[in-house]
């Protein structure tokens, strides 16, 4: 019994432990909350200011290590609305060169974002203003200057592909907690697709400021500062000289040039014209310039290389030939009759010997021949079933990179269109169509739509005899090479050899459509296209690759409303190839004539 009662005494020991711990807590809390001022002072946000350290955004280089995007210093005036009090508003307005109305608006906007967090008040003040302000800042509690970096472009090139950097919007702030109001983010191009790498990581420095808003040094010797991490540099696949030439040749024209290294999928040059100087979309002038550019009737913000879609015209005959060969519907020796302008259902615009074999038909770009190829392909492979035949044709076409985006570092591509058989079912009814109904596809007209990037990729696949890497603009991030998955087309390599022979004759043959612009020592393989369209004169198209053996460059050129493919697109492609492969232009007169031409 005594043991039992002694056990129940233990309750007081346990209770004592509990009370002792609680007492320690209460003492500590009493010290922290009542006696000590330390924490109150620390919590007063006007003594502790968090200064964000923006790391310099990563630089961007061309494939030979020449800088194409760089940074310059800028200063933003920031405001923490809750700390603003008793200031001489008129004087501040005068210093910042803004009016009272604007002052109120800006402060309200900042307050709306957060009364406690800093947000930009006036962006990119001049160095002189910064100098003045720095001295007088102590009289404006709540305001401080935030240094940051802005983009600058030594060469006004590749604006669409490089993209631009702008302030984050509300949606971006909500979707990623990293961003705070006033932060910059890549809005388009590779600035967008490599945002995480380029931006680095913001640092934070906690500084103590006195009641006069003057910095009093770091807080606890920088113990709680967060270090910044510099942005990573990008080496692009662009060749600065080639890009510059491309932009020059495309002056005063609507259209696009895309040049790719076939063995890697690296884009050597990508021109969309009309373009703009990327320096226009930097910093505080960005908003105004953006508005002006977006209202320009020539639409310079539109990235034609990846967003404009065209009928491919005669360049698509190569695709039809490839599908025909692959499905066994035709052989290189197959012949189809051409009756010149009297041919049915599609007339031929060239006069030549008939019937031609495949290679000759490519050289001459004979319309009736390729109608024959298309009809035979669809009817033979389908065995009477138009849907089956068409679907096989479509799958083969799409395996060359058409009708879909490339999974790559170029944002905002469009798909183009290789219509599905359901589309024709809806349009003509399930039994209402056959090869004849969709005959335009035989010569790359009709519903098919492709982008200049896809067109260049077609040249790549042919140059590689069957495969491609998704075309991309960035070779390496901070020295680490980017990786891309090889894509294999559904067409066997010997068929590419066959049509390459035809493409060789387009430039080197006696009656090839590109023969006027062949090069002395380099064999070019290519195909021209002249595309009818509802907007006026024909579009001038061309694809090419060179040298014929072991190709180093594949290219597509599209000039809107210019006329024959052979007149404009071919010489431009030829000049680009020469420049890339020899490093110089021997035909300066031609270069002059092309760049001077105004086709708008």
């Amino acid at each position, binding site marked *: 019994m005594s043991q039992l009662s002694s*056990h*129940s005494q*233990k*309750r007081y*020991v*346990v*209770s004592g*432990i*509990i*009370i002792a*711990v*609680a007492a*320690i*807590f*209460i003492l*500590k*809390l*009493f010290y*922290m*909350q*009542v006696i*000590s001022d*330390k*924490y*109150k002072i*620390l*919590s*007063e*946000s006007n003594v502790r200011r968090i200064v964000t350290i923006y790391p310099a955004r990563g630089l961007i280089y061309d494939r030979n290590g020449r800088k194409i995007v760089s940074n310059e210093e800028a200063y933003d005036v920031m405001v923490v609305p809750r700390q603003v009090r008793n200031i001489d508003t008129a004087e501040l307005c005068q210093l910042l060169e803004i009016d009272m109305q604007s002052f109120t608006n800006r402060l309200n906007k900042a307050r709306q974002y957060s009364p*406690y*967090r800093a947000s930009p008040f006036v962006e990119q003040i001049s160095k002189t203003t910064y100098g003045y302000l720095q001295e007088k800042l102590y009289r404006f509690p709540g305001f401080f200057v935030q240094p940051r970096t802005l983009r600058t472009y030594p060469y006004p090139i590749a604006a669409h592909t490089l993209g631009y950097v702008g302030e984050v919007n509300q949606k971006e702030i909500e979707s990623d907690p990293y961003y705070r109001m006033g932060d910059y983010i890549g809005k388009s191009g590779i600035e967008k697709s490599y945002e995480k790498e380029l931006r680095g990581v913001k640092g934070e420095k906690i500084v103590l400021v006195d009641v006069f808003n003057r910095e009093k040094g770091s807080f606890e010797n920088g*113990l*709680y*500062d*967060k*270090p910044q991490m510099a942005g990573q540099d990008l080496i692009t696949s662009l060749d600065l000289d080639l890009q510059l030439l491309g932009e020059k040749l495309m002056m005063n024209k609507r259209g696009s040039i895309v040049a790719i290294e076939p063995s890697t999928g690296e884009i050597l040059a990508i021109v969309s014209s009309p373009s703009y100087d990327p320096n226009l979309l930097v910093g505080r002038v960005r908003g105004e310039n953006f508005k002006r550019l977006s209202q320009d009737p020539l639409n310079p913000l539109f990235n034609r290389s990846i967003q404009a879609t065209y009928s491919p015209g005669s360049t698509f005959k190569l695709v039809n030939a490839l599908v025909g060969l692959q499905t066994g519907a035709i052989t290189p020796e197959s012949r189809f009759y051409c009756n010149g302008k009297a041919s049915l259902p599609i007339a031929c615009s060239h006069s030549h010997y008939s019937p031609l074999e495949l290679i000759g038909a490519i050289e001459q770009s004979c319309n009736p021949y390729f109608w024959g190829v298309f009809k035979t392909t669809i009817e033979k492979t389908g065995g009477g079933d138009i849907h089956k035949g068409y679907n096989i044709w479509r799958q083969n076409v799409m395996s060359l990179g058409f009708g879909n985006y490339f999974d790559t570092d170029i944002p905002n591509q469009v798909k183009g269109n290789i219509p599905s058989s359901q589309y024709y079912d809806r349009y003509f009814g399930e039994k209402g169509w056959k090869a004849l109904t969709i005959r335009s596809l035989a010569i790359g007209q009709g519903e098919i739509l492709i982008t200049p990037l896809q067109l260049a990729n077609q040249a790549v696949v042919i140059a590689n005899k069957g495969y491609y890497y998704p075309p991309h603009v960035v070779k390496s991030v901070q020295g680490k090479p980017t990786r891309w998955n090889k894509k294999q087309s559904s067409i066997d390599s010997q068929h590419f050899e066959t049509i390459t022979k035809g493409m060789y004759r387009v430039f080197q043959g006696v009656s090839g459509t590109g023969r006027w612009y062949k090069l002395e020592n380099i064999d070019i393989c290519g195909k021209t296209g002249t595309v009818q369209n509802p907007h006026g004169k024909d579009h001038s198209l061309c694809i090419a690759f060179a040298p014929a053996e072991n190709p180093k460059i594949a290219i597509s050129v599209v000039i809107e409303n210019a006329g024959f493919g052979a007149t404009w697109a071919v010489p431009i492609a030829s000049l680009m190839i020469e420049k890339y492969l020899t490093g110089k232009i021997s035909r300066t007169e031609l270069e002059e004539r092309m760049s001077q031409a105004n086709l708008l």
Partner: protein
Amino acid sequence: MNTTRYKYHNPFAGIDRTLLWLYFTLVIFGWLNIYAAVYDEIHKNIFDLQTNYGRQMIWIATSFVIAMAILLTDVKLFNSFAFFIYGLVIVSLILVLFVGKEISGSKSWLQIGPISIQPGEFAKFATNLALASYLGNIKRNFSKAGVKIAAFSIILIPALIILAQNETGSALVFLSFILVLYREGLSAKVLIAGAIIIALFVLALVLDKYILIGLCALILLVYYLTRRNRKKLHWILIGIFIATSSITFSVDYVFHNVLQPHQRSRINVLLGKETDIKGAGYNVYQSMIAIGSGGFWGKGYLKGTQTKYNYVPKQSTDFIFCTIGEEWGFVGSLILIGLYVGLMLRILQLAERQRSAFSRIYGYGVASIIFAHFAINIGMTIGLLPVIGIPLPFVSYGGSSLLAFTILLFIFIKLDAHRHDII
């Protein structure tokens, strides 16, 4: 005779009102503070299910339903099913090790449909039931070594599995069962030895291990020389010396080779040995600033500025006490600590009036578990203990935690209501 019949008709008769009110007060106070911690201008509605406080409301409602169910359960079932529940929890703990979901470094969550639960939270009351059922059996005498080993095993098995899940905090809670064992006959020397080991542990981290061992030797030598009766004393003292030395060395080894880097740096921050780290010290520092800046009366409900800055991490879960300290000040902190102390002392008081050993041991277990959480959590937020992530009972946001503590407490309330019955 009449009263007995009456009891059968009313399952709520005899339940302790004090515990009930303390429970409700803590739960509601917690909910209000979760709202304050997460509060922003966009999600003003306290019932918004997109937010922690909206979801907590659902958990509170669920807890009330479960509490009700426990009060309606036949009281005899808790003892009979103790080991069944214990086994079930052990199985699910092991299951988690294999199929568990990893959330911020610890693999302790089980995903069942849309909800994820933490079996570790439920292991506490299950272990408590099993321990009470085992030691509550009159056939078992705690002074026997076999019974002691079995009792320790019941406690350590779930603790070790939880440790393997990387939930150090929850595993530490099981150490609090030592208070239960103390009540049931474990020698006070074990408690004192435990305290000395903890002191040695801290000293071993602060001082050089050879200096510490030298100090121990010195103290023992002085003790030996000052005593008159030295018969056999030297053997005991040499034994103590060997024990302290080996503890010192093993602490050193455990600290440098067993603990993970983040645990090491948390302890170093607390001991003031590490100052150049950013992450670990920052949290505690911000937490202390938030609490310290609350002052005597606090900044007022929903007016905590540190909260609005998002300075303190995990504000609604592990660091909920920051919000309380900042917005309710010293007065609020005092009241909250008072509520917990009241709750624990009341449980101990009720435990001692139980006729059945099962109920008494269970009651001590409830108080011990709540005590461990209370001490570790608040100690962490005010910078007295290293950062160990465990919730504040009934107050912190989190479904598993609230449900588990509700079950833990209400089983005791139910047992207490039937203290005159034979259980």
